[in-house]
């Protein structure tokens, strides 16, 4: 092996340190040199095809027409326009989004053409609803209703349970998504005495099986149906709410505005219910999605909410 490392004939730079340390002057390997030159050529080719040099606030865009990219964009007014630009990552992304929409189209079409009930019976179609619905729900609904649709007491209803203020059928849910909802309850602090509010609150707690003062509750029940408080106008004679106006069912175990599950003591529970009656509500606003999502998307989202989240009726 040693004949190859014959150091006597190796070229050095002539520098010597400490009498014996020398600097070898071997030529670079040829493959390396060529690789180096090829990178030069590569950059030139690159400039022709891709955006490269910054110039002021602008940049070179490659030779026009050599590497252009065409995609379809949707204008804010819903109009579809075709755009052609020099190659860039953003347009590449748009092209991929176009392809995605194209790929999903046949499934969306299938959902759009079917009655709601049949979609749920098609297990394979439901897989599509599950995955696409999840993304749509996350993008549009989850900011209020939370990722798992569990809602937030005092803010947005739980969509996974079986209680629907505005109705839980496919048609109800679709209507809610299309047009939005506007929940309202007037404040009663001007109309009722504090004692009366306490009585009503006890009655509300009793109906849900929570600890309460029986005496006060009895008075509350009468008050509920009287013209003074007139609760029954909205919540109904049996206090089960009315789907037409979205008034709450006060007899079930589900709480949306008064945080009963989060209240530790009986007094706190009472105070929560009283707070709602006293102050009323005007925050039950759900925006309309008709302009933002296409009818097919809304239909799919409806099935997702009804069946995948599992609360539908």
């Amino acid at each position, binding site marked *: 092996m040693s004949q190859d490392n014959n150091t006597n004939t190796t070229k050095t730079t002539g520098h010597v340190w400490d009498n014996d340390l020398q600097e070898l002057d071997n030529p670079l390997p040829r493959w390396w040199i060529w690789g180096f030159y090829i990178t030069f050529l590569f950059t030139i080719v690159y400039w022709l095809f891709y955006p490269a040099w910054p110039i002021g606030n602008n940049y070179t865009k490659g030779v026009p027409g050599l590497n252009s990219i065409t995609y379809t964009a949707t204008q804010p007014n819903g109009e579809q326009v075709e755009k052609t630009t020099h190659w860039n990552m953003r347009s590449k992304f748009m092209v991929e989004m176009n392809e995605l929409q194209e790929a999903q189209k046949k499934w969306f079409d299938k959902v759009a053409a079917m009655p709601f009930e049949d979609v749920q019976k098609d*297990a394979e179609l439901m897989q599509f609803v*599950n995955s696409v619905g999840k993304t749509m729900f996350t993008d549009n609904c989850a900011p209020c209703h939370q990722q798992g649709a569990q809602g937030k007491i005092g803010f947005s209803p739980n969509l996974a*349970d079986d209680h629907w203020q505005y109705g839980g059928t496919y048609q109800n849910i679709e209507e809610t998504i299309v047009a939005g909802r506007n929940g309202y309850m007037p404040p009663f602090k001007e109309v009722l005495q504090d004692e009366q509010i306490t009585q009503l609150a006890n009655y509300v707690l009793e109906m849900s099986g929570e600890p309460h003062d029986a005496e006060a509750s009895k008075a509350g029940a009468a008050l509920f149906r009287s013209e003074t408080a007139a609760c029954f106008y909205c919540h109904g004679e049996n206090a089960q709410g009315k789907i037409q106006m979205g008034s709450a069912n006060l007899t*079930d*175990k589900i709480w949306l505005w008064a945080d009963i599950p989060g209240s530790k003591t009986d007094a706190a529970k009472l105070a929560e219910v009283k707070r709602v009656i006293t102050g009323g509500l005007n925050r039950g606003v759900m925006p309309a999605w008709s302009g933002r999502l296409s009818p097919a998307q809304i239909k799919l989202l409806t099935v997702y909410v009804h069946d995948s989240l*599992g609360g539908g009726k």
Partner: protein
Amino acid sequence: MPQTGAAKPSSLLHKQIPIVTRSVKGKFRNFKTAVMVVAYSIYFLLPWMPWQRNSAADQAVMFDLESRRFFIFDLIVYPQDIFWLAMLLFIAAALLFFTTGLIGRAWCGYFCFQTLWSDLFILIERMIQGERPARLRLMKQPLGAEKILKIGGSHALMILVSLWTAITFAAYFSYAPDFVIALFTGHAVEAAYITVGVLTLTTYFAAGVIREHVCTLACPYARFQGVMYEADTLAVSYDSKRGEGLKGRTLPIIGLKTRDERQEKGHGDCIDCGFCVQVCPTGIDIRDGLQYQCISCGLCIDACNNIMDSVGYPRGLIRYDSEKNLSSDQPKPARLEWKRVKVIGYATALLIAAGILLYNIGTRNDTDVSVQQVRQPLFIMLSDGSYRNRYQVHIVNKTELDARYHLSVRGIPASSLDLGSLKEVRVRAGKSLIMNAKVDLERTIAQQTEKFEFVVTSSNPDTAPVVVPANFNSQR
């Protein structure tokens, strides 16, 4: 004798004398040829073997990436079985260690793809260009019609073989007859052309151009096989005591022809003919001792035995033997020393791994079910105070027939399972499906229930029901 053809140390930066091997006859050559015939028959013919299938093309061995199923005769492997691959790799490693500890680089010499294809390409060279002397002559010749025709011809043939090797490889991944037609009519997918192109080039380059450099420079196994050698390992060795004698090897000149004459004058049995060097595919001289370049192909044994026969000395100057035996004062006939800790250890690991793999394959269920609880939220309270948990049930149908699956629960009332209006689901052959399942339990039952089971029953009577445990959560 000039040692033309012996390699200098491998180096990419220095020019090297190309290795031009001489062919040889003998039992190791025969064994190598036999392995080659069997291996090539399997590799090249297997994709063409038909096999009756219901849900895929009728091909006995097909790695169907599109439907994510590997068909190996009657076995269908799914992505969920990736564990088998890990086991298989482990078994391969253990087998490699085991054989190397016992008989050295048997894999390298007889079975490795690099060796097989190099061997084939050397055969092509010999068939077109002739035996070693003719090839050396051809190399020295000035460029002319004969040289271009013969060298160009052998390389053209190597490229063709490489191409067919690549096409065969790709044919394992789709229905071979359709694939080959599509490939040549320009209708195959882009990935197929890239695969075939890359494999053609790499096969040609590795086996036709750089050859032994793959073993000496690139192969990781060649680098660590040294640790598996022990003093008892059988390796291709030159018996230097016998070959060199006291005064070294020498040519059989007059007066040194018979064994007795040589021994009298202190010379060993090696007549320095250089045949062992000329046949060596990695261009080394085995007489220099065990070297990392030696792939243990045994061809030098054949070469030397032939020479010993012709001069009438006993065979086995170069032979499979252990370092320990060779260096002992009274070398015994070489034998397999398997009673060693490492060898037995490797064998045990091998047997255990193979056992686990076979057991696993044998007991796999045709239905694969996994249940994932929806964790956001963990539970939901319903208006009547009962609790709801939601689950995603993932069912994989591993059979070759479409099947209907029925989902039920055990350990809680049957009515608590709500699947909407779905009573059964159909899962296509080899496909999977995710179902939404809701379980509603009354408050008191919910608070006592922590666990229950999902039972998935297939409409296929041969498939056993699958029971999967699940948790139930509620506010306690």
